[in-house]
């Protein structure tokens, strides 16, 4: 549950007036400003900002663009919290190039044109140095032309279907092949799965993901016994559950999203399919700890999920991250894969800016490939030439308490491959 945010978070409301003040400061005689610059030992604004971004001598403004109203607010809230946390932590450790990060938060309202409008506002009016945001593919597709036209930088946190590689986006979540292939290989190898039933919500990510899954399953010489899509928001799954019972697949491969998830898992359990018996086994790539909150841990107990991050990951980075996150947003909060990926955004941007020695979008872009983050909660990540992240994939087993137990972790970082040959 979302707790009332501590006073710190109200900062975005007073943003406008503060920025006005800062502009006034910037207009003070240069000599005065010089003094302050020297004292902070930060590079001069004229050096780090040649393209008119919202960078002053002691601040840099970025944008946060997620849905905080509408149907997608359910999913995007975690990302907003993670991005704010990362920004606050960066500020506490001295900011970026000696400048404190300020953010302007906009509401995409779960409506794609609104995303486009707001992204344009952030880029054109507010001249933000980077935007952390978007969740659904549709919202990303809507803002993409805007970012390309006005040359902005978007850090996009969600695992998604791939088939895209924009110079103006850094994809901090996994693209489909990273998530899918490792997961399927694991169930085939460890659980001896031979037949699969593919199920998804009816839109591009589940469809494309299932397409990749099907190709891979068929490549392995195994069988897909059913493939099915339901409209977003569908709440009746009894018929498909019967079909699953009839076809008796070894694995239900489920990419159901949003509110449908809750209905699906509750009805699955009620229909007598006990996932802990693994007959059939359920493998999902769409249910993070965030979703389990709504589903109820007891209803999804025994399902497997393949993604790159689970809150229960056992490493010092993650321990610190989870602790900080709970301190900031409340004890009963959970952290899902996307939330973690969103947390990476500001850190990756900071690293790229510092490597480039400039906030200029072109320089940040040029500096981005090869940027690594050893402090990532998920472990080590590195930005690939194609703007996606090298990352590991893990398989988690859902527990009644709503957490995943990590049962498998890929040995090496998996190379992002947004345009997989032979899978299209």
């Amino acid at each position: 549950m979302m707790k009332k945010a501590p006073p710190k978070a109200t900062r975005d409301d007073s943003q406008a007036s503060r920025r006005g003040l800062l502009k006034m400061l910037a207009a003070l005689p240069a000599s005065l400003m010089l003094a302050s610059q020297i004292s902070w030992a930060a590079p001069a604004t004229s050096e780090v900002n040649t393209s008119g971004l919202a960078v002053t001598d002691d601040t840099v403004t970025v944008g946060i663009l997620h849905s905080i109203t509408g149907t997608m607010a359910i999913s995007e809230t975690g990302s907003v919290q993670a991005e704010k946390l990362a920004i606050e932590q960066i500020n506490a450790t001295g900011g970026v190039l000696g400048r404190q990060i300020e953010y302007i938060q906009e509401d995409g309202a779960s409506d794609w044109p609104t995303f486009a409008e707001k992204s344009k506002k952030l880029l054109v009016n507010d001249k933000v140095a980077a935007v952390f945001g978007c969740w659904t593919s549709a919202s990303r597709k809507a803002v993409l032309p805007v970012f390309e036209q006005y040359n902005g930088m978007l850090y996009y946190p969600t695992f998604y279907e791939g088939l895209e590689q924009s110079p103006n986006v850094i994809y901090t979540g996994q693209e489909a092949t990273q998530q899918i292939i490792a997961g399927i290989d694991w169930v085939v190898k460890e659980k001896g799965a031979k037949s699969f039933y593919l199920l998804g919500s009816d839109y591009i990510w589940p469809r494309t993901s299932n397409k990749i899954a099907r190709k891979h399953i068929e490549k392995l010489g195994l069988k897909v016994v059913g493939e099915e899509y339901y409209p977003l928001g569908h709440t009746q799954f009894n018929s498909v559950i019967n079909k699953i019972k009839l076809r008796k697949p070894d694995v239900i491969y489920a990419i159901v999203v949003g509110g449908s998830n809750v209905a699906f898992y509750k009805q699955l359990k009620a229909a007598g399919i006990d996932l802990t018996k693994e007959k059939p086994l359920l493998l999902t790539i769409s249910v993070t700890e965030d979703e389990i909150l709504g589903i109820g841990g007891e209803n999804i107990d025994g399902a497997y999920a393949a993604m790159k991050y689970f809150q229960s990951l056992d490493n010092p980075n993650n321990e610190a991250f989870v602790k900080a996150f709970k301190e900031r947003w409340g004890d009963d909060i959970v952290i899902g894969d996307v939330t973690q990926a969103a947390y990476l955004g500001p850190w990756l941007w900071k690293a790229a800016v510092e490597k480039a020695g400039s906030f200029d979008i072109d320089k940040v872009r040029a500096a981005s490939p090869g940027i690594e983050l050893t402090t990532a909660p998920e472990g080590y990540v590195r930005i690939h030439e194609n703007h996606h992240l090298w990352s590991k994939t893990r398989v988690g087993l859902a527990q009644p308490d709503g957490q995943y137990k990590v049962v498998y972790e890929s040995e090496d970082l998996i190379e992002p491959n947004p345009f997989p040959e032979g899978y299209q």
Partner: protein
Amino acid sequence: MNHKQITYFPRKDLIGFAILAAVLMLVLPMALDVFRLNLVGKYLTYAFVAIGLVLCWGYGGILSLGQGVFFGLGGYCMAMFLKLESSDPESTKIQSTPGIPDFMDWNQITELPWWWEPFYSLPFTLFAVVAVPVLFAFIISVAMFKRRVGGVYFAIITQAIAAILTILIIGQQGYTGGVNGITDLRTLLGWDIRTDEAKTILYFVCCLLLLASLATAQIIRRNKVGRILVAMRDQEDRVRFSGYDVSNFKIFVFCMAAAFSAIGGAMFTLQVGFMSPSFVGIVPSIEMVIYCAVGGRLSLLGAVYGSLLVNWAKTSLSESFPELWLFGLGALFIGVVLAFPNGIAGLFQRYVEPYMPAWYHGRVAAKASEKGNSTTSGDNVTPDTSEEVPTGSDKQPATLKGGHYVNAE
């Protein structure tokens, strides 16, 4: 006697149109930067829908909760043309099948579906932008109105149609772009529609089309058809027993509303650069009704101002207080219905118009003085006035009998 001639544009309507034209074409372009102007252009595309709703709902008493369907269809037709243009083999050479839209390629479609082919032609597209939604509206309305489905039932069925179309568009993503819609539209006959200059030009095109639509709607409204619509809304049976086939008039006005919405949709696609199924659904369709209600469901000009106002409020409120926005919008729905059923236009007529000088009302001075100030606004309901809002009378506006039950007495 002043009933001798029907004037399509009585003086005060003319003044209203002139002011609106001046605001849209002069004041706003001078006052706003391109970004904000483009936003206004986007709001104006909703005004097309609102104008259609004034005719169809305000005058005809037919409430459609599926206007987004026509807005969307018009927009999709335009988007298909633009998408084909931006999908030439050269710029799509990385695809496994170059020359088809990118989303088709992602869905393993290797050949352009036959019904996309005609959209290579701009004249055909412009024709289809209006013809496809109107044809669709025609089919729906013939089926419904010939069977005398009306009022609430019609509203709910249009809602269901919006739901059906949304699911279809999302489900057939290989042909429609699915939930993402048709995105990344770049040029119109080689002219880049994303530049600031293009946006400004498109804004003016949008304004001109809007004014033309307003004029068309005004003529219909002042015409005998307009009076039949009002008559039909109030006493449908009487109209029928005066020898009119009521359903034909309903079909006509519903198709007109669809046509306006479709033009709005096409302009939306051009100005915003994409089209998505989120416009076809139920929520935007109902929101479009509120634009019309806020402006005043009987006022064409009000519809335009209503669309501008609500959207402007939405943008600015959601920039600073996103949580408050839904409260505001909800309160707006309730407030308009409870307190101001005739919206901004009603307030204007009640509180401003009586104080306007005689030249505004367009009467010969003698006539005005002869009538004197006997009633506050009795003049308002003579045939010369622009809106049939019986202000000054304290009864519930008789104009709100929109809902007819199919099987009520």
